[in-house]
Structures are given as C-alpha cells and as structure tokens.
C-alpha cells in the first residue's frame, strides 16, 4: 500500500520540537505525526500543536508509551532526559532519533552513513556543527585520505540556548569525534564561536582539510559540490559561500596543501528564525532521518505481507 504511513511522536515542546513539528507537517512523507509531548502544560509548543490538530500532551515520555502504534520517536529534550527515554523506548521497541547530546546510539549524518544504521533502535544527530560540516569532510576523504580536519562553526548568539551555553565543551568533543568517525579524518578538531551581531548572522561554518598526500583539486571540488547538492535536498538553505579554496599552509606535518570550504546555512524559517541555520539543520536532518527510517519500516512491512 503506497499511502501507508508510520506514526511518529516528538518529545520536547520547546523551540526544536516545535520547529520539527512544523517541518513534519509541512512535508510528512511516510510519517504521520501522532503526538507532541512535553512536560510543561503551558508551553507554547503544545498550544501550537493543538491549534494545528496534532495531539499534544504534557505527560512527556509516559504519553508516548501509552501509544503502542507510535514507532518512531524524535527526542528534542535534554541529554539527561534522553538517557531515561532511550531505555524506555528501547524496551518498548520504538526507534529513537536523538537530537540531544546524549549519544546512546550511533552518530548519523544522513547523506554519509544513515543507510548503515537502519536496523539501530537509537541514532544520534551529533551537533549542529557536525551535521553541517561532517558531510564536507567526508566529501574530501572519499576522494583522498584526510590527515586532519578542522571546523569552525559560528552561530548567532540569539540562536544559542542555555543547553548549548552550559555544555559548550561537549560541542567541541562531540563534533571533533564525528569528524573522525564519520567524516573519515584521521584527526578532527572543532571550534564554536557565538556572534552577537545585530541583526543576527546566519549560521556559518568553515571546514579545513589537510589531505594525507597529493590529490586532484578538481576531483575534490566536484565531490564537495555534489555533497552540497545532496544536503540541499533536505536542508534547502545549505550553500557554499565561495568555491573551495586550495592553498599551502605551515602545518605540524610540514608545508601542506589545505582545502578550505566556506559554508552558510540559512534556516527555512518554519518556526525558528531564518538566521538560526544551526537549529534548522538539526530539525531538517531529524526529519530526513525519520523519513528514511519510516520508508525502511514500510518496506519491511510490505515484505512481511
């Protein structure tokens, strides 16, 4: 049955959960949003859900557990809450798509490694900087081995909530680790900068990669450009600010050619403002991951029938 869908729920009725709700309603694909669950009965997100005809509950994870037909749960709460949620969701056989830094399941970046983890019950979306930059490091490393990759994510101050601010170290550890395990760099480093300019700046990322040995710049450029096109399919505001730059720099490995990619991420403005590309890329990636899981579940269902 082509018009079958998978029921999904969002945990967390804050900015991220609410933006994700709009994204799924805007383009449901194989998903049907069955529930938005928060813990604050007065949250704006829950009120918005009800106004849009989406079931809403302030009972958090308990509300999700009452609905066995929900097969995929997006968690946009906090790392601490997700640790508890992950266990309960796993025990009841639901797939958890984790937008928090909890990292109970494998890291996924949709165009790079999502297909490898379609049988996982819990996947983690790393960080906003990771979702933005890992595809580009991978785009280089699939053409030529990368000795070292470094990224700088600059986000508007206004788009950095208390969670990011209190856990800024975790951004650097987690993103750097993602550059290595998914991006394919032998060594990764991540830097995050909050910029308070008014009006707020769009999310910006700079990706530096030092290839192991000689490489063909045209091939690297082509690989980067095709990866950008792939990410644009689910994050329309993802674009290069300039074509990749190649120059020679002094490095701990001698004078080496360095690939520099300057990237901008503009949010779709579903619920969050367009400058918050850092939040948009998380919710857009989450929607994409949910869609791919939903299609996978549907294809298995067809096989069983």
């Amino acid at each position, binding site marked *: 049955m082509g018009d079958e869908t998978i029921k999904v729920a969002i945990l967390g009725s804050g900015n991220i959960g609410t933006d994700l709700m709009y994204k799924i309603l805007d383009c449901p694909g194989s998903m049907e949003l069955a529930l938005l669950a928060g813990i604050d009965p007065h949250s704006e997100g829950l009120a918005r859900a009800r106004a849009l005809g989406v079931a809403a509950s302030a009972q958090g994870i308990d509300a999700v557990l009452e609905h066995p037909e929900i097969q995929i749960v997006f968690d946009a709460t906090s790392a601490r809450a997700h640790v508890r949620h992950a266990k309960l969701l796993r025990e009841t056989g639901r797939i958890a798509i984790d937008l928090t830094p909890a990292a109970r399941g494998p890291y996924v970046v949709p165009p790079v490694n999502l297909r490898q983890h379609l049988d996982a019950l819990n996947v983690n979306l790393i960080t906003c900087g990771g979702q933005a930059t890992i595809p580009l490091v991978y785009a280089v490393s699939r053409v030529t081995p990368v000795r070292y990759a470094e990224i700088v994510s600059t986000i508007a101050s206004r788009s950095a909530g208390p969670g990011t601010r209190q856990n*800024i170290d975790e951004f650097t550890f987690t993103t750097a680790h993602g550059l290595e395990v998914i991006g394919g760099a032998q060594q990764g480093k991540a830097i995050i900068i909050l*910029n308070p*300019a008014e009006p707020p700046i769009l999310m910006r990322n*700079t990706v530096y990669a030092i290839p192991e040995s000689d490489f063909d710049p045209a091939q690297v450029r082509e690989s980067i450009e095709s990866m950008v096109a792939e990410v644009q399919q689910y994050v329309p505001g993802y674009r290069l600010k300039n074509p990749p730059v190649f120059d020679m720099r*002094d490095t701990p490995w001698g004078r080496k050619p360095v690939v520099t990619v300057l990237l901008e991420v503009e949010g779709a403005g579903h619920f969050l403002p367009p400058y918050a590309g850092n939040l948009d890329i998380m919710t857009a990636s989450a929607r994409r991951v949910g869609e791919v899981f939903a299609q996978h579940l549907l294809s298995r269902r067809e096989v069983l029938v």
Partner: protein
Amino acid sequence: MKAPRLTDTTLRDGSHAMRHTFTRQHVRDIVTALDRAGVPVIEVTHGDGLAGSSLQYGFSLTPELDLIAEARAAAERARIAALLLPGIGTRRELKAAVERGVQVLRIATQCTEADISEEHFKMAKDMGLETVGFLMMSHMRPPEFLAEQAALMESYGADCVYVVDSAGAMLPHDAAARVRALKAALRVQVGFHAHNNLGLGIGNTLAALEAGADQIDGCLRGLGAGAGNAATELLAAVLDRLGINPGLDVLALMDAAEYVVAPIMPFQPFPDRDAITIGYAGVYSTFLLHAKRVGEQLGVDPRAILIELGRRQTVAGQEDWILDVALELVRKRGG
C-alpha cells in the same frame, strides 16, 4: 591610585606576533628575566588560549603544555597563568594545564557571552586556581552592559574580571568608564588589558588605573597582537614615576625587553597603517597577520578587509571570515 598587580603576557599575547613559534628556550629566558624583575604573574599559552593550535589561528611550533611546564620550572616567585577561551579550549585542556603547573586561569569570552564560562570557572575553582574573567572586545558594548556580564563571571567564581580592549579601539574615557562601571558593580577585583593600535596602550592603562583598576597587563617590548600591548618595561617606568610601583625592577625589565625579547622578535609591533586600521575599525587584533597574508595572496588591501569585518561586527576568533570577505571583495572588483 594604588599599586596594581601586573600580569605579563608576552608568552601568550606575544604568541600571535611570533606566529606561535615560542620555544622552550624562549620561555625559560623570558620567564627567568620577568621573575627576577619582580613580575608576579606570567601568562604562557597559545595566543588563542589552550588548544588554540589550529589552522584557524596557526599551529604551535612547540606544544603549549611543554611551554607551561618549562615556565613553571623556571619561575621561582612568579605564578604561571594560562588563558582559556570556551569554544576553543575545554575542561580537558584546563586539567592538563594544571597538571603542568598553571596556578592562575584566565577565562575569556566575547563580552556578550559570559554565560558560556560557568563550567570552566567552576572547575578551575574546584582545582584551587586563582581565576580571572576576560571580557573580550569590550569596546563593542556600553559600560552598564559589561558590568552585568562581569557580574555573571563573579557569580561563577572569578576573583577578578578584566575589561579587555582586544581591538585596541578604546579611547581613554572609554577605558575609564568601563572600569568604573565594573568597580561599582563587583566585589572582586577589576583589570584592564590594552592594545596599542591607536597608540593608546599606556594611556588607556593609566585611565583604567585612575578609574580604579586593580590589575593590568603588559608585554615586554609590547610584543602582542595588532600593534602590540602596553609594554611591560614602559608600564614599570610609568608606575614608578607615579609612585605606585608594585615592586618591579624598572631597569631589569628594560634589559629583559632589550636583550631577551627584542632579539627574537620577527618584527616590532607598531601602529602602522594596517594595525591602526584594526583599532579604527574595531576588530580583533589577531586579525592583523592573517589579513596581511590573505590580502597579499588575493591582491586586496588588508585595510579594506578589516573595515568590512568591523562593519560585520565580527568578534574574537573569527579569523575564517577574513578569507570570506577578501574573496567577496575580489568578486566585487571583478564584477
């Protein structure tokens, strides 16, 4: 005015001008000279703080942790400080730096973002360190706003909060007003860190002292980012003439500047046209050498890049935008 505490940051802010090439020998010689001349605190770190070694800012020739260990071994009286910028350095590097002998931790954030430093202050206090908050690019916000951010750092455990003129963009009344606002709002000490881009490194430091600053920074021979900092040996001479010498050996510091630091400097930081532009445009002093390099590569006047970066309200650490702006300027010129 009372005698201030002086922190010498030749081996941290000077790292920018040295393109991060300090060696163990440099550290041993400079720390020994500063220590003997009575400087009580000596900062040793990559210019952009712990873990600053990167493509974005420049790789360290010698690992900073080795330089910190060398400094601690060479210092008999002086305490060793390190700088940490949350977003670049983390609690991991903080712990490693303490293991190598750091006793004072200076934690720097953009002057609007003090609330990203809470965990770092907490850890530093738990480890028994003296802590200093650094509000970078303080010229970008008014005094009352800075006082609120400084109060956050105080609440996290800062023993002192600095007004940091990272762009060397302040005039003396700007420095004084900001220090005065912090003095009125805080119970802990207040410091001032100058850059000399508009030729006001010493003048602004004096204005800060008149406004009640308890701590100030200097670099031997002014060796620091942009046009450099207030020169330590000059500060010593001026403080002495003011009758508020905190115990510095003026002649010994002159010798340290002349015979230890001058011979290893790749150039004398000075308010030349590009450095003046940094102060004039109000951008981060460390952009200087990066803007010169990119400007040369792409045939763009570094001043045009720096002024555009000022217009975009760039902050500390945004060196990657230099290339971005330069490429845009080239495109505009072509089109």
